[in-house]
């Protein structure tokens, strides 16, 4: 008996079986994103001097520092620097030095050094006196000769002062600091082999800035000399300075005048400003000038100036004379139509410039204008290239190049000899909304089935026969495909091709930058198409409504755009209205209803909607009725000056397989099922209480309320409600002897009555009304059973797996920001009826209940993300498939992650251990055996008859 119980418990607990290694990348996909790389801080770097292999390093606009394998675009490691420092909108700065296993990154006031190969922390530092404006690795002759680690020069700028600090390469300790309190804008730090330069912008008397260069002794930081360059006529803002070089024999400061007529060049360390006339022969205004120069100490003092006009670009290469500091023009790269980007790379002292245009990629040496290599671009991109970094390899006379190009749409792609090797869609990190879409082809059958569902038995049968006869026209095609299908189904890894069961539905994702992406979940989330829908940087998408074949995106400004889901083509648009909407409700008939910031409906609605529940900006929950659109029929204001922070309701698709819970003695505990339930979370930040209120959406009646004390309102509070249960989690502190300190997860189940076999006051009534109850107490309050668990880490978002009919047990999907993962906690574990402080009785054990343990450790098998580091997730969505066992899960907000969840295992799919080949082979062998034996047996029987006579 014991054994049986134990086995039963095991069977109940294990439904969330782990994800097996062979399912990884098959059922799930993950885009590990870092965000749009910043141009100044992206580079190829050889982390080890022993190996020639280099990695691609960057820091993004999200202050995420990442190392990418240039071979396949896989992320090797990444660190979110914005977590440690205070948030900054500038992104970050990243520097590295070839052959040294260290990169130094800074974001906000936080600076840290990481090993380049595997991203381990070497040192970190937090400055209290300002924000890091610039960092540079000090490449001095003496330093490179003695120790492996390069010291870092950090410029910390605040409103009143600029401080240059030399930080030790091994410990991050400050070796010296030089403080400038003149009130200039701390701009950049630069270094030559012998000196350190602090470049600041001194505001001129009338307008503009003068460039002030202060030379410092690299050993002790003492100021050696200081001079000011007259640049106030040209430099209006700090952005006007085009380029400040560093770590070369002759570092440069380059700026241009406002009309783009002349270029001013100063070799840092000299007072002389050289003027170079820009020869604009294109006939168009120059839109952008970029300066590209090598970053290596021993490289030739050459640099390239890239001029971009509206429709084309050209470039000029200049040489600097080391002795006289004279700048001379060497040659010109011709004007070409279309977009182009230029990247610099070094081989020893030689400098190479790679120019990537729409149609081709060319390499030139800085010394002469002869083209060393030219490749036609395989697929011309329509997106503008913003910047590029390249790496050139020379073998004898021939050269090869690989360049990483950042496109305007946020796509980061590696082009090797003209071929696009990989593309990373870094724009997806700003995903704000996503949904699954229905392809048009699938809809025809669904519609037919719906028709059949509504007809009488005979009518439906006739309809089906007719449909099948019509389908016969596809038979020849089907027969033609059959051999191929059989062969592929025997040979492929997966036993059944599940794409027809809706497990490979495309997902469309809207990003903050106004773009829309379609991800193919059947192909590891590959981007099928992407389209710029809105020209904005703050696209506040509130809702995506899908119809078969198309999807409509509604933004908070009242505008909408309808796109074709298979091509991404924008079909129609509506202009924004002047109201700001806080949410958009989509109804069954694909119409939408906007909700204003104050919670009132933006447009009138009628009785067909009936009742509407909204939240207002000032923390109330409002109920509206179709009869009166002007004022709410009820209003929920949480007691004791709490403020509503979150409200959630049951999912739209929330089927109930069984209306009761069968107990061990086979009596029934009836579930409290009311589709109009809303769970409201309210917080009082002053006395650290959090209230959780269960409301009836029609009458506004509070059906259940609970208050938690000692809640930290700054920590995430997540909640979810579905079926007849709800869950919430928060950080609770000790308020009395019996309370626990830590992250807590509370699960509550709602029943119609505390007694089994009792359907509560409404008993066997077929329907109920929240307004016109027979006994005034309507709707009846539920019987609530709750249990709390202490969990190891915070939960930032909760969702529940959804299946087609709700027969499969549900999983509570929790986003864990600290371990960068998503965990699916099986419901049998979270059963509030688990016996406390005693072992379960045999009938309880039969129900699958086991002893309550206050600490709920997340089992490794529950992690849907298994070994993946899925960070920054803000929203997790779940969608049913045609397979009852399988639920689709899609997470976005930072990384993009999608998987299939099978909370009760894939009970309706043939497993991988099922071998079709073996089955077919067995049948064939048996048939052969029968074919051989049948004549033999017949002969024997005849012989027997003859013998009998």
């Amino acid at each position, binding site marked *: 008996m014991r054994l*049986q119980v134990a086995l039963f418990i095991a069977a109940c607990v294990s439904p969330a079986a782990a994800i097996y290694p062979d399912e990884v990348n098959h059922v799930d996909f993950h885009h590990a994103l870092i965000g749009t790389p910043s141009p100044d801080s992206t580079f190829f770097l050889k982390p080890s001097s022993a190996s020639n292999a280099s990695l691609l390093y960057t820091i993004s606009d999200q202050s995420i520092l990442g190392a990418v394998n240039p071979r396949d675009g896989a992320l090797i490691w990444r660190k979110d620097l914005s977590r440690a420092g205070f948030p900054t909108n500038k992104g970050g700065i990243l520097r590295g030095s070839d052959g040294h296993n260290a990169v130094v990154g800074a974001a906000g006031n936080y600076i840290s050094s990481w090993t380049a190969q595997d991203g381990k922390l070497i040192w970190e530092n937090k400055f209290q006196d300002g924000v890091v404006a610039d960092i540079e690795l000090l490449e001095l002759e003496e330093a490179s000769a003695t120790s492996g680690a390069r010291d870092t020069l950090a410029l910390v700028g605040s409103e009143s002062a600029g401080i240059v600090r030399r930080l030790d390469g091994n410990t991050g300790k400050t070796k010296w600091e030089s403080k400038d309190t003149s009130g200039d804008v701390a701009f950049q730090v630069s270094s030559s082999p012998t000196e350190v330069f602090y470049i600041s912008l001194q505001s001129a008397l009338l307008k503009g800035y003068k460039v002030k260069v202060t030379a410092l002794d690299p050993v002790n930081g003492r100021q050696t000399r200081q001079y000011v360059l007259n640049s106030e006529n040209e430099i209006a803002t700090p952005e006007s300075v085009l380029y400040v070089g560093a770590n070369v024999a002759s570092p440069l400061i380059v700026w241009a005048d406002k009309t783009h007529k002349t270029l001013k060049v100063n070799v840092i360390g000299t007072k002389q400003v050289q003027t170079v006339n820009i020869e604009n022969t294109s006939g168009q205004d120059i839109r952008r000038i970029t300066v590209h120069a090598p970053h290596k100490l021993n490289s030739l003092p050459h640099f390239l100036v890239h001029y971009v006009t509206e429709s084309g670009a050209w470039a000029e290469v200049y040489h600097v004379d080391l002795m006289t500091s004279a700048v001379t023009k060497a040659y010109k790269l011709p004007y070409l139509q279309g977009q182009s980007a230029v990247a610099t790379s070094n081989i020893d002292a030689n400098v190479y410039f790679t120019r990537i245009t729409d149609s081709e990629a060319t390499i030139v040496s800085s010394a002469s204008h002869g083209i060393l290599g030219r490749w036609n671009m395989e697929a011309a991109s329509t997106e503008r290239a913003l910047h590029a970094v390249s790496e050139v390899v020379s073998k004898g006379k021939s050269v090869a190049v690989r360049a990483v190009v950042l496109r305007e749409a946020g796509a980061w792609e590696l082009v090797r000899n003209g071929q696009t090797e990989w593309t990373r869609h870094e724009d997806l990190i700003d995903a704000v909304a996503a949904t699954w879409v229905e392809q048009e082809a699938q809809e025809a059958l669904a519609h037919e089935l719906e028709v059949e569902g509504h007809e009488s038995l005979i009518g439906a049968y006739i309809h089906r026969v007719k449909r099948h006869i019509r389908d016969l026209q596809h038979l020849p095609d089907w027969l033609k495909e059959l051999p191929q299908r059989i062969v592929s189904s025997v040979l492929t890894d997966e036993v059944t091709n599940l794409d027809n069961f809706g497990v490979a539905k495309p997902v469309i994702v809207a990003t903050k930058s106004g773009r829309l992406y379609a991800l193919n979940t059947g192909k590891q989330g590959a981007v099928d198409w992407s389209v710029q829908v809105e020209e904005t940087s703050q696209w506040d998408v509130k809702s995506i409504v899908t119809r078969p074949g198309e999807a409509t995106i509604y933004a908070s400004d009242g505008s909408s755009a309808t796109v074709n889901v298979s091509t991404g083509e924008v079909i129609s648009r509506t202009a924004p209205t002047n109201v700001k909407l806080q949410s958009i409700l989509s109804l069954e008939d694909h119409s939408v209803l906007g909700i204003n910031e104050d919670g009132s409906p933006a447009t009138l609605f009628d009785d067909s909607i009936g009742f*509407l*529940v909204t*939240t207002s900006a000032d923390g109330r929950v409002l109920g509206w009725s179709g009869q009166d659109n002007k004022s709410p029929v009820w209003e929920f204001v949480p007691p004791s000056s709490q403020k509503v922070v979150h409200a959630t309701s049951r999912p739209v698709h929330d089927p*109930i397989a069984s209306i009761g819970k069968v107990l061990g003695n086979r009596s*029934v505990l009836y579930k409290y099922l009311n589709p109009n339930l809303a769970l409201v979370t309210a917080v009082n930040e002053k006395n650290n209480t959090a209230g959780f209120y269960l409301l009836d959406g029609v009458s506004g009646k509070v059906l259940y309320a609970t208050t938690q004390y000692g809640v930290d309102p700054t920590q995430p509070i997540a909640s979810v409600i579905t079926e007849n249960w709800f869950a919430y989690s928060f950080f609770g502190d000790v308020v009395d002897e019996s309370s626990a300190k830590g992250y807590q997860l509370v699960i509550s189940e709602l029943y119609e009555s505390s007694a089994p*076999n009792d359907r509560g006051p409404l008993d066997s009534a077929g329907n109920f*009304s929240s307004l016109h109850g027979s006994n005034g107490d309507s709707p009846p309050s539920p019987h609530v059973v709750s249990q709390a668990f202490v969990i190891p880490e915070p939960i930032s978002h909760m969702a529940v797996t959804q299946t087609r009919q709700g027969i499969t047990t549900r999983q509570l999907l929790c986003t864990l920001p600290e371990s960068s993962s998503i965990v699916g906690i099986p419901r049998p574990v979270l059963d509030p009826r688990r016996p406390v402080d005693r072992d379960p009785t045999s009938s309880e054990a039969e129900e699958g209940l086991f002893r309550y343990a206050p600490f709920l450790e997340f089992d490794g098998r529950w992690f849907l993300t298994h070994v993946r580091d899925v960070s920054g997730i803000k929203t997790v969505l779940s969608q049913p498939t045609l397979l009852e066992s399988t639920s689709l899960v899609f997470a976005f907000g930072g990384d993009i992650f999608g998987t299939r969840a099978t909370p009760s295992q894939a009970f309706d799919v043939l497993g991988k251990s099922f071998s079709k080949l073996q089955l077919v082979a067995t049948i064939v062998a048996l048939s052969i055996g029968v074919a051989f034996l049948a004549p033999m047996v017949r002969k024997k029987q005849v012989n027997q008859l003859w013998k009998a006579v």
Partner: protein
Amino acid sequence: MSSPLPPPPPPQWVVALNSPMPRPTKAATSIQDPPGFSSTRGGKQQKQQQKQPTEKKPEETDALKLKKAWEIAIAPSKQIPMNAIMMYMSGNSLQIFSIMMVFMLFKGPIQGLINTNVMFAKFDTPATHGRLYGVKAVYILMQLGLLALGIWKVNAMGLLPTTRSDWLAWESERQPLEQAYFAFR
């Protein structure tokens, strides 16, 4: 398959065995039987001699028949304790053995009930006919007892729809008359 061949003609000795003995010739009848040989006629005489006493007392025969009938009627009751122990020991889990045992437990009494009249047909004489009703009633009662044991067992195995949970699938969710739409942030 080939159709079966007609059976071969029976051998001579079989024909001789099956056909009646030819009437002995006059001369043969005159021959005296060897000592110790009893002719068929003599056997018949003996049987008649044995039967003669019972035929003489029909009441006794009826009593005997009734006694025998009672024995048959009571027989199922002897199985009840054994079956009960077996059923108790076999456990309430659904396994192939317990299911087979329960099946046999039902099959026996039901067959017995159907064959009630056949069972007692040989004891049925005009004289015993009236008294046999009681016997049959007891027999039926005993079989029902066995059936009850089977039903008890099936119930213990949880196969009878006697609890609320068995009818849960036929109960439907209560439908709300009003529907609320939620537009939360």
